[in-house]
């Protein structure tokens, strides 16, 4: 096996990085591929709760890096998917407990054992971000169609260019079609125009995201809701499949009737 190492980052906090990592990981692992997620947000870990694994943590990323346990021991197996693992972040340390070369070393080891390594980067552009992108083969930048999220995404893309990383791919999260139609939200085309990096996925705003994190069961597990479907499509695109973007239009009765009569 030679895993692909994928880092999910954003610059701005709260745009949905952790949600994206959890859901893409579940989608990949449910096809039988072996996936390990690493929570890179030392001091502010959250991937454990989104995945519902918070009660199973014994060792964490810093324990691995500092040699207190073997990598294997810090890999928590998911409750539902036997091919899915999480290496949690340490909660009582800070970002400086890990270095970019530690991350590269860890990922070199993991590459031989799994199909995918997904790294959840912390917000910001400092040490935690540097750690998270150091081992990445591909970087996914998550943004929302909103001023500060797009601006921060652009900063991150610029930093990745300066690091000579391969061109990142964009995930536009929390897209609200009704607001776009009203002219009160940047459209997918607007965001693409501004950032000019290729789009990997478009994820609609969806209340199910909060419901899923309340339960600690990522959306893509039950395949309910459009956001869950969008993340499944992202996983398939990462696997090299061509999947058309979701139709996010909340179409009314008239549109559907017109479709029906038009087709007949």
């Amino acid at each position, binding site marked *: 096996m030679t895993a692909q190492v994928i880092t999910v980052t954003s610059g701005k906090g709260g745009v949905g990085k952790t949600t994206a990592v959890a859901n893409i990981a579940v989608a990949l692992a449910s096809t039988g591929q072996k996936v390990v997620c690493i929570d890179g947000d030392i001091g502010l870990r959250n991937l454990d709760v989104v995945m519902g694994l918070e009660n199973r943590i014994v060792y964490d990323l810093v324990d691995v890096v500092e040699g207190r346990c073997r990598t294997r021991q810090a890999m928590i197996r998911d409750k539902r998917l036997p091919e899915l693992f999480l290496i949690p972040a340490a909660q009582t340390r800070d970002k400086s407990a890990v270095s970019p070369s530690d991350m590269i070393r860890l990922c070199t080891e993991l590459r031989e054992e799994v199909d995918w390594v997904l790294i959840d980067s912390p917000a910001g552009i400092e040490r935690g971000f540097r750690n998270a992108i150091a081992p990445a083969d591909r970087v996914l930048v998550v943004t929302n169609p909103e001023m500060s999220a797009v*601006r921060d995404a652009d900063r991150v893309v610029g930093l990745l260019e300066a690091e000579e990383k391969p061109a990142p791919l964009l995930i536009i999260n929390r897209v609200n079609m009704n607001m776009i139609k009203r002219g*009160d939200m940047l459209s997918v085309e607007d965001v693409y125009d501004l950032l*000019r990096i290729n789009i990997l996925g478009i994820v609609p705003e969806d209340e199910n995201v909060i419901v899923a994190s309340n339960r600690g069961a990522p959306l893509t597990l039950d395949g309910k809701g459009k956001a869950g479907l969008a993340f499944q499509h992202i996983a398939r695109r990462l696997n090299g499949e061509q999947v058309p973007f979701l139709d996010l239009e909340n179409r009314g009765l008239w549109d559907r009737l017109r479709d029906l009569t038009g087709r007949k």
Partner: protein
Amino acid sequence: MPSMLERIFGKKSAASAKERLQLVLINDRTDISPAMLEALKDEIIAVISRHVDVDPSTVHISMEHEGREQRLVADIPLRAAKNRRRGN
């Protein structure tokens, strides 16, 4: 809240967001502020004027972008030869 008229005829908030972001991103990417661009323009005019006659009010300097690449574009119309006066 925008008034009814604004809602019908005025600019939608997404359009202002895009316009504002375009400027902010150019600034972020190049580290050239509008004030710096102004200073740059004055210096360019001073240098060019030493050699050819230009009307400072017609000089236009702007940032353009193609994909993620930024370009500084200077449009400097020359004064017609018949109007040319030595030493400005």
